[in-house]
């Protein structure tokens, strides 16, 4: 018993540490190491000590650890990263401290918008992500296909190439498993048909959803595993093995497609996603924002750290060191010289669209992915799926009104 008391006392003592600036970052171990490098630079410049709190790599788990810290009003972490999909929840929960006196003129507009509330800045994008189209340059040349600007072109070219390349070769890979990524793909098809996720039961969305289903079941240019397994890495690995003509993925895949041991190295091109008509293509906005906790005990230093991380110099470093897409449009010109895919990424991000900005978005997302997945698997009729999803979302909104 005495031991127990001592043990608890020691535990309590270790909680009341000296105040220090804490930054919560997650990701792979290499990513976290690179973060520590960036933070070292900040420490040297400002003479402020920063402790990097390591989070898991999984997005849901990162969110979980932040939600726990913030609901308990913990002073740590002071600064953290948020996926663009959860910012609304954080904004509406009043967990964020206003980021004052920053120049916001250079950010991608849709991305900046996501962090605003009543015109005030509560979260600033650190880097952006936008869905892009990867294609096989060599095969497009061989079969005389243009880089598709419409879904129709993409479909025709896929069918043509698949006929020649034989079995086990697919036209178009995309994320269709029942998870958050499916909401993104659906949003892109929907927006490129002129639809919106705020009004699900619309002719535009029906057109988009039917097309998604037909890609798998009617034209068979997308594999049947699309609606069960296809997430980012599944798409990336299959495309990289040389067994597909087109793939929808995030910009991170570029470096991997061109890595030393990649079978498709040097033959991959990247472009903004096609639309149902020329010029209507849209990209789902992803990326991570920086935020300062309202419960932070070091708000001034936190502001300095945020401003440091969105400075031109560090934004460039983020691109070259981490391989992320800077949130500032003005750094792209210098970067595209060495990272060629970035010009397509920039064009895609300028046409980015945001997922529904509701604090209970994750429940909306559950509904959308449930019904969209049901429709593309062929189990539910697309128009029925959209009607049901819309009903369900209306009911959900009622609970939180």
């Amino acid at each position, binding site marked *: 018993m005495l031991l127990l008391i001592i043990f608890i006392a020691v535990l309590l003592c270790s909680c009341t540490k000296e105040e220090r600036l804490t930054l919560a970052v997650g990701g792979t171990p290499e990513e976290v190491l690179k973060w520590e490098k960036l933070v070292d630079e900040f420490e040297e410049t400002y003479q402020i000590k920063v402790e990097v709190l390591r989070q898991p790599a999984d997005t*849901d788990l990162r*969110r*979980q650890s932040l*939600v726990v810290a*913030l*609901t308990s009003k913990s002073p740590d972490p002071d600064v953290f990263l948020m996926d663009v999909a959860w910012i609304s*929840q954080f904004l*509406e*929960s009043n*967990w964020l401290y206003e980021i004052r006196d920053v120049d916001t003129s250079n950010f991608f507009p849709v991305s900046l918008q996501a962090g605003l509330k009543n015109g005030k800045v509560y979260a600033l994008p650190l880097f952006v992500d936008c869905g892009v189209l990867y294609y096989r340059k060599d095969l497009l040349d061989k079969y005389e296909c243009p880089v598709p600007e419409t879904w129709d072109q993409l479909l025709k070219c896929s069918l043509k190439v698949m006929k020649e390349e034989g079995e086990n070769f697919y036209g178009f890979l995309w994320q269709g*498993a*029942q*998870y958050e990524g499916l909401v993104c793909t659906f949003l892109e098809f929907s927006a490129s048909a002129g639809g919106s996720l705020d009004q699900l039961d619309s002719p535009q969305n029906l057109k988009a959803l039917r097309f998604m289903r037909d890609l798998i079941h009617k034209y068979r240019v997308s594999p*049947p*595993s699309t*609606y*069960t*397994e296809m997430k980012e890495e*599944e798409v990336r690995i*299959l495309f990289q093995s040389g067994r597909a003509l087109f793939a929808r993925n995030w910009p991170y895949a570029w470096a991997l497609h061109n890595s030393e041991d990649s079978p498709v190295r040097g033959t991959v091109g990247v472009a903004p996603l096609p639309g149902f008509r020329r010029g209507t293509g849209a990209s789902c906005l992803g990326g991570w924002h920086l935020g300062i906790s309202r419960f932070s005990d070091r708000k001034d230093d936190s502001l300095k750290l945020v401003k440091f991380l969105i400075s031109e110099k560090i934004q460039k470093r983020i691109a070259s060191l981490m391989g992320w897409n800077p949130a500032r449009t003005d750094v792209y010109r210098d970067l595209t010289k060495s990272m060629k895919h970035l010009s397509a990424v920039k064009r895609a991000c300028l046409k980015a669209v945001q997922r529904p900005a509701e*604090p*209970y*978005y*994750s*429940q909306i997302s*559950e509904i959308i992915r*449930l019904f969209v*997945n*049901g429709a593309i*698997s062929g*189990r539910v009729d697309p128009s029925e799926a959209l009607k049901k999803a819309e009903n*369900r979302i209306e*009911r959900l909104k009622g*609970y*939180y009104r």
Partner: protein
Amino acid sequence: MRKEALFALPSFAFIFLLLLIPLAGTFYLSFFRYTTFIGKDFNFPENYIRLFEDPVFIKSLLFTLQFTILSVSLELVSGLLTGLIIHSSFPGRGILRGLVLLPWAIPGVVSARAWESMFNYSYGLLNYLTDSILGLRINWLGNELTALLSVAVADLWKTTPFVALIILAGLQSIPEDLYKQAKVDGAGIFRRFREITLPLIGPFILVAIVFRTVDALRVFDLVFVLTEGGPGGSTTPLSLYAYRIYLGGDLGYGSAVSVSLFLISLTVSFLLLLISRRRHGFE
């Protein structure tokens, strides 16, 4: 107070602090509309009414029950067989007993990852086999029926050792003399099994059922890794559903889902204990 009662104090404190308080807290929260983004107001019984109106909840309740019945019955059969095998004496029995325990010792997430790669459509071992023998690929985690079966099989592999161990303990408690006498009386191997083994390990089987049922009702890690609740939400157990709702910031409704899971577990284990007590006078 008697002195002996003091000795029960640590375990009572443990149960009180770590089980009863959080439990009461969850009950309490489930009476509120409590989200991180709106605030907190009393709305009993609205969260509970919402449960019945919520098709996702009903679907995940059905999945939870299906999974529990399927996996527990499979595990009983395989656990019984495994138990009988490692009870009989043969050279290398000690090594086999150790090996049989292996799946139970592997952390759930790790074994789930291993199964995930075996079920994979493109490069999984199972499809390699079906492809080379039958020439077809099956989307194991991809449709509702095979996904349920896949999860059940992975669970079967992992928890058979647990059932086998309990049954082994039961088998070892049976005196050899009974079998010898039965043999003298001319009872065959199946007769001996039916008349001696089964009745005598009955209480042990019930213990295994109780433990496994309660465990299966709150399955989480396996499904989280293998299917993440898909395809089409068909493999979302209640625990995963509650977790998702908590994550979205709705603590009140999430608590209501958790409470419902708790009540189901409680009822089921109570019924099972009632049966065992009536059947075997087993306490």
